[in-house]
């Protein structure tokens, strides 16, 4: 029975070449339109970043990246991502686990809250921390008296980045965890595995590609965030400028080539992210297909 259903589905996918009964003309016009759109608005500007960066030659490109302020911006960006991504991964796994595997009151509220950073403007994300920790904010005087710097220093930048990258891992994991269901874990538990062991050997392997994908997206945004970080950074050259802020600074100082050199690093990050994403999706679909084949052959026996 199951075999029959999945065979039907496969037939449907193989036929989907034709999609609807529209003529090939419509199909190719649509493909050409979206292709042109992508080329004009995405590919050409992206390629232009590299052209501008290398305009004055490779040597200048490299020396632009070796500038002390640029090096410090790269370092700061890496540090921020190194703190943000693991924290949000941990949070994402916890949240997805809770949402996918348990029933509790306020679950939909939790899901809405996880999505909040997607719907809030990054400027607001920055400002809420200024209102909390700025000198005129709720904790401002106390922090100042105790010589603790949050806003206009690394902690503020980390906080703002955590806020905007909050949903990425959880959002990727929730559907995957829901799809895998609870049966396997229940089986593991009845066979005597503890909670942690079940998580480590049963849950995690079944969601690993989704998790990795979430982590990669989270990292890309953490390194590329401009708005929220701009509000809390203070823009001190060589101290609190992350890479995106540094690009803006260089451009404003008429150092176009250097600005594009740093921008090219961010563009490279984007390309790597896309590459890894494609690879992960391919792996995931292959594993899914294999699992389905196994089920099918078991059913047919």
């Amino acid at each position, binding site marked *: 029975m199951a075999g029959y259903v999945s065979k039907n589905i496969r037939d449907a996918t193989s036929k989907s070449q034709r999609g609807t009964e529209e003529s090939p003309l419509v199909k190719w016009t649509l493909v050409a339109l979206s292709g042109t759109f992508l080329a004009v608005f995405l590919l050409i500007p992206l390629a232009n970043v590299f052209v501008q960066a290398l305009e004055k030659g490779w040597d200048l490109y490299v020396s632009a990246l070796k500038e002390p302020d640029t090096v410090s911006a790269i370092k700061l960006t890496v540090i921020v991502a190194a703190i943000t991504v693991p924290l949000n991964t941990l949070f994402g796994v916890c949240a997805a686990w809770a949402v996918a595997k348990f029933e509790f009151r306020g679950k939909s509220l939790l899901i809405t809250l996880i999505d909040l950073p997607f719907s809030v403007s990054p400027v607001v994300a920055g400002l809420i921390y200024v209102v909390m920790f*700025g000198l005129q*904010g709720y904790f401002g005087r106390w922090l100042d008296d105790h*010589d603790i710097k949050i806003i*206009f220093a690394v902690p503020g930048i980390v906080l703002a980045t955590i806020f905007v990258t909050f949903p990425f891992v959880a959002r990727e994991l929730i559907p995957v965890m829901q799809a895998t269901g609870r049966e396997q874990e229940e089986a593991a538990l009845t066979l005597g595995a503890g909670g942690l062991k079940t998580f480590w050997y049963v849950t995690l392997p079944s969601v690993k590609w989704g998790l990795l994908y979430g982590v990669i997206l989270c990292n890309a945004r953490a390194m590329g965030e401009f708005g929220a970080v701009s509000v809390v950074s203070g*823009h*001190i*050259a*060589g101290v609190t400028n992350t890479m995106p802020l540094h690009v803006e600074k260089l451009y*404003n100082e008429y150092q176009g080539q250097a600005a594009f050199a740093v921008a090219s690093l961010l563009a490279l990050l984007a390309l790597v992210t896309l590459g890894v994403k494609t690879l992960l999706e391919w792996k995931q679909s292959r594993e899914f297909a294999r699992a389905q084949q196994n089920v099918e052959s078991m059913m047919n026996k």
Partner: protein
Amino acid sequence: MKKFLSAIVIGAALVGAHAKDIKLLNVSYDPTRELYQDFNAAFIKHWKAKTGDNVTIQQSHGGSGKQARSVIDGLQADVVTLALAYDVDSIAEKSKLIPADWQKRLPHNSAPYTSTIVFLVRKGNPKGIKDWDDLVKPKVAIIPANPKTSGAARWAYLAAWGFALKKYDNDEAKAKDFVAKFYKNVPVLDSGARGATTTFIQREIGDVLVGWENEAYLALKEFGADKFEIVTPSISILAEPTVALVDRVVKKKGTEAIAKAYLEYLYSDEGQEIAGRNFYRPRSEKALEKYGDKFAKVNLFTIDEIFGGWQQATRKHFADGGVFDQIYKP
């Protein structure tokens, strides 16, 4: 032998001097990036020679109003060097980091250099821009910055208003009408002076950049005098960018002496020379002699004469619901 000697000298310097490492943060406005790069290098050398200590000067740049806001919110500036006195006043008033009488602590109202508002046009002046009148003609696109956030833009707004008052015999209604026409010709309002400059030069939007004189000269230097021309209007405003010590921060960090010396050095021969070299109008006679000819003679009025000072001008023109909000409809 030479190497040996220099090794001894360096060694002696290391042992003897006990050089301290001091960090200063100068929070400044948009177009002073090049000025302070130049000035900081000179001051570091001067301080090293005088005391043996190593200073690192960190810079933060942005729209003047925005920078003031950051200092109010706790950006630990040792000194602020902003586009207008009102922004320093705001810091004093809202955060009490600076005493209210700050402007009397340094000569020339704490403005070590001045500038004014001029026009930058494309080569050959295709729209024939000569004075403020020409900016309100139809089909002239002008690029000032946003007076809500940018210092240069406030000076430019007030300069246009001042011109109109003179032209229409102090008729306020006509002046308001003139400035409304002025902002009708604005295709885009950037938040800072430097953003407006890049809009005009690199994105090639607009016929006239209305902004700092120093910024216009710097653009000529960076992008070539064969592409742009400076037009000086018949009358403009005396812009006084002001500097101040942030008392509470320097007391806490123990940098009071050096921060004071830093600001005072702006008034020294070398400081004035650097200001002149970077197209700011210097105060000292000596630097004026050398650089005065570079700047066109222009009839300058002050904000106190026409508007009764920054507090009044801000309340009337730039506050929420003020004249600018009434006339500017994007």
